[in-house]
């Protein structure tokens, strides 16, 4: 780690710095088996949570701030879609079929699997130094120049060099850390804050947020943020070379030869 760290000078950003990593780990997989397996379990769970969550929202597509909220109170905002319940005045002349049963069951089961997978990943990452070595940006990279170089490359839609396939640039590192250690914990927290039984044991879960409806609204916005991350993530993977990046995350193999698109 110290050699890797000391090699990180701010001049050329992470591109130059990742070269020693390449030579050192040429035979090792780009992503370890644990990263690959937890990545895809999380992917499946996220889609299940997103679809079932959307279905649950449709039964009451109104959002509130504070502790309580219902059709007799003023919403913070409404989503202009038909509802699956006749109770909600949507302005549409029809009510969608109720699919909340399986949606809720799928939502909570996926949440359990995602949380347990996440715990395994975080514990593994802390023990092996994965976060420190693979995701924590080097001090030099955090300089304005280091970051602006990466941003400029992104804005020019410049495809990353082969060497970059072995490491993450500073923007990737910050984004992944933000998703793993801020957005995921927040979405779990706001989700638990909506559980009447859980908050009976841990009332601060919801009182710190300012109420159950606030928790529900925040849960919705954090989901939007995670979905935005997903779209940008998939878009940038496509830009960087969809086949090679997918191969790296599925098999662990990182073909450094030039890819025919």
């Amino acid at each position: 780690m110290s050699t890797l760290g000391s090699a990180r000078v701010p001049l050329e950003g992470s591109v130059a710095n990742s070269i020693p990593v390449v030579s050192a780990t040429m035979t090792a997989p780009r992503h370890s088996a644990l990263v690959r397996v937890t990545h895809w379990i999380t992917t499946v769970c996220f889609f299940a949570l997103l679809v079932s969550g959307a279905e649950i929202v449709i039964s009451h597509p109104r959002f509130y701030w504070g502790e309580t909220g219902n059709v007799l109170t003023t919403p913070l905002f409404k989503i202009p879609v038909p509802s699956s319940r006749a109770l909600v005045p949507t302005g549409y002349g029809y009510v969608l079929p109720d699919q909340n049963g399986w949606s809720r069951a799928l939502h909570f089961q996926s949440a359990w699997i995602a949380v347990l997978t996440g715990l395994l990943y975080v514990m593994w990452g802390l023990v092996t130094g994965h976060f420190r070595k693979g995701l924590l940006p080097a001090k030099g990279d955090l300089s304005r120049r280091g970051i602006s170089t990466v941003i400029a490359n992104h804005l020019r839609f410049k495809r990353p060099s082969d060497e970059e396939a072995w490491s993450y640039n500073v923007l990737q590192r910050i984004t992944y850390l933000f998703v793993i250690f801020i957005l995921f914990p927040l979405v779990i927290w706001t989700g638990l804050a909506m559980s009447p039984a859980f908050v009976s044991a841990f009332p601060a879960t919801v009182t710190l947020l300012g109420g159950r409806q606030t928790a529900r609204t925040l849960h919705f916005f954090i989901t939007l943020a995670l979905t935005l991350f997903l779209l940008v993530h998939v878009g940038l993977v496509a830009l960087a070379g969809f086949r090679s990046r997918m191969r790296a995350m599925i098999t662990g193999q990182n073909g450094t030869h030039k890819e025919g698109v």
Partner: protein
Amino acid sequence: MSPLSRRKLIYTGLAAAAGVSGLGVAASLAHKYGLVPPDHGGLYGLGETLTYASQRLLTRHSFAREFSRSEISERPLANETAPLSEPFKRLQAGGFADWRLTVDGMVDRPASFSIDQLKSYPSRSQITELSCEEGWTYIAEWIGVPLSHVLNLVGTQPQARYVVYFSIEPDWWESIDMADAMHPQTFLTYGMNGDVLPVGNGGPLRLRLPRQLGYKSVKFITHLTVTDSMKKFGKGLGSASPEGGYAWYAGI
């Protein structure tokens, strides 16, 4: 097959066997301590069981949040219900004077109670939130007699594991385990916000348990049965909710 891969195979087999028997031990322990919900089968049984088991361990003695009088919702939302049945309307015409709650099953002294009788027992009130699975909520003062008081009157037998409760309306029934049934905040509710419980909110009698979602608080209760197994009730999944695809345990 090389010796190395054979050794690997043996180790993998041993690990799998240990894993399976570990799961077996966990399952029998979970059954013994009442951590397996009646709707534990099927595609989503894993999630339902994990939620129920973990919350049973965490929340057995915890209390739903209670609010101040100033936080009571201006208008307690009366959720949509199916049109009321003839039997309900007849009792309603008589001012619910003939409404009866019968209690039977694994009890020493099966009994039947009028609303006035229930009101003669020590009255309790709680200002708690009703959370609907759809996402909306309201806060109200709920007035009634704790279910535990009535269960103690009839004397539940030691093998009792669930209390099943039925609405006068057809196909509307739920059940809860004894931890929820004996919980001090589980009420046979007959009043709301200092008045009688309106029909729209479940009057004249609603079983109210604030640590689970609103659909577990069944309206228009006429019948309680204490049992040691849910197999004999409906499809054996614990209540009408799982038969319609919803979780039996709704603490989330």
